[in-house]
């Protein structure tokens, strides 16, 4: 098995500093967050420019070039609801360190993002949902199959789709979290790759509790085959968990100093 893939989530327009930096085309805050995340072991950087209805194409191209020129063609997940902006970003994207990831498709209104990825030889994050959170694993696997079929019809490799089972929040939907783990196992057993936004699990819990929940879910998910996640790589506890699980799963080689970050 290859080691767990970390997609760094911190370049996100929901952060006021990043939103402002996008608006001003100010590289510094973006480069700083990129640098921190890569130093913390991120494999991919997510570049979330928000809905970007106006000027999205130019903004995405600016962001992709900015990150890749400064960080040795770092691979990027292009994250926006504006499909044209993703396409524009891919046009200037350098593939030497990995394919671009389209973030994201689902089995409903956003299924065309799969087409977009296929047409551009990209990977795609495929949410196993149609409208909102899937009710159960029958739904999850149905949507997973629909997305897979769509991609393969258009010539994609199955491993270029990263299936997101949609982690659910413990506070309120605790009883369904085991389903998510089971879905990861089922998708993995089909020979497919998975990903997901982990932080949703602990949403609403006190700040000092959240890492405990996030890390535990991650470890349990990795045992089910979970192969990547969109996370904050600068969270030291999370990073330790990923490395420890990668060692236990024999994905990386142990050495006494591997936890000295």
């Amino acid at each position: 098995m290859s080691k767990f893939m970390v997609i760094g989530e911190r370049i996100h327009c929901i952060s006021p500093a990043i939103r402002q930096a996008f608006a001003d085309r100010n590289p510094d805050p973006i480069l700083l967050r990129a640098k921190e995340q890569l130093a913390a072991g991120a494999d991919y950087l997510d570049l979330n420019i928000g809905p970007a209805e106006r000027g999205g194409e130019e903004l995405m191209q600016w962001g992709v070039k900015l990150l890749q020129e400064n960080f040795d063609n770092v691979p990027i997940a292009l994250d926006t609801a504006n499909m044209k902006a993703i396409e524009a970003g891919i046009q200037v994207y350098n593939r030497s360190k990995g394919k671009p990831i389209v973030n994201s498709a689902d089995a409903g209104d956003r299924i065309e993002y799969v087409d977009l990825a296929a047409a551009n030889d990209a990977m795609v994050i495929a949410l196993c949902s149609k409208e909102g959170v899937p009710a159960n694993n029958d739904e999850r696997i149905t949507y997973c199959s629909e997305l897979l079929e769509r991609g393969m019809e258009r010539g994609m490799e199955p491993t270029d789709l990263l299936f997101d089972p949609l982690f659910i929040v413990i506070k309120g939907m605790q009883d369904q979290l085991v389903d998510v783990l089971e879905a990861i196992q089922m998708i993995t057993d089909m020979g497919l790759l998975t990903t997901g936004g982990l932080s949703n699990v602990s949403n609403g819990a006190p700040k000092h509790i959240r890492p405990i929940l996030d890390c535990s879910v991650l470890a349990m998910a990795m045992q089910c085959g979970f192969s990547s996640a969109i996370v904050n790589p600068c969270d030291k506890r999370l990073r330790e968990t990923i490395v420890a699980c990668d060692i236990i799963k024999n994905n990386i080689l142990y050495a006494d100093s591997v936890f000295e970050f």
Partner: protein
Amino acid sequence: MPYKKTELKFNGKINTCEIGAGDAAISIGGENTLLFLGDEGFKPAVGIAITDSPEDWSDCFTDIFGDDLKNPAAWAKAAVEKSGADFLLVKLASADPNGANNSVENCVATVVAVEGAINVPLVVEGCKNAEKDAKLLEEVAKALEGKNVVLFSAVEDNYKTIGAAGGMAYGQKVSAESSVDINLAKQLNILLTQLGVKSKDIIMDVGSAAVGYGFEYVASTMDRIRLAGLGQNDESLQMPIITNISGESWGVKEAVSTLEDAPEWGDQEARGIGMEVATAAACVVGGSNAIIVRHPESAKTIKSLIAGLIG
């Protein structure tokens, strides 16, 4: 059905490491596949070993080198000429405090003379006493500043001195010795890197055994290290591998027993070469980027094997 060659693609790449200076420099490593499986033609380098204390070496070396055995510089020159080796290793066995306990000054003088006598890169091996090697290889690094030699090897007990002197202060290459322990191999690389030695200045001495003497363990260790570096893109294991098989190969009974001891085994020299060639061949196929042998015939044979495989 037409034949379709499939090639396993890896994300990782082995570092390229240059040893030696000026026209004599060579580079090892750089491959992004298992050795000989790619079409880039990355070629392991073959080194020839000499020592400042040849007393326990097989008699055949006296026949080959004669009085040169008493003079490391002359021996070094002859060894390179007779073997066509890509580089030379000199072992400072006399420094051993449990043996001749030769002074650091004397040993450094030997190394400087050897370096001056050859036109290929130099690897300097200590006496395998961690404390003495720290002092010895530090002074060697200082005396040969600018020559880009390999300090062979740093271990857990002396990596700080050897790493700081060799890899940082005097710009030499540091070999990290892990005695067929994959976790230690990774650990030493991390420690050296944390100390400030650049990855490209580190070479791994992962150890060896003569074939037939637990070599399976060496083979699986090399495999694990290479697959971690290439397949898992583990940067702490992407250093080239250097392997000195000469001591192990010439130390086993197949090489040590005289014709009188074992007449049915035939010529002793041929047996030593046989052990050495078999071990060296297994190491280069397993991933050694630089292999060190004693006998000029072994060096020539391995060089022709490599040339034949690369085509």
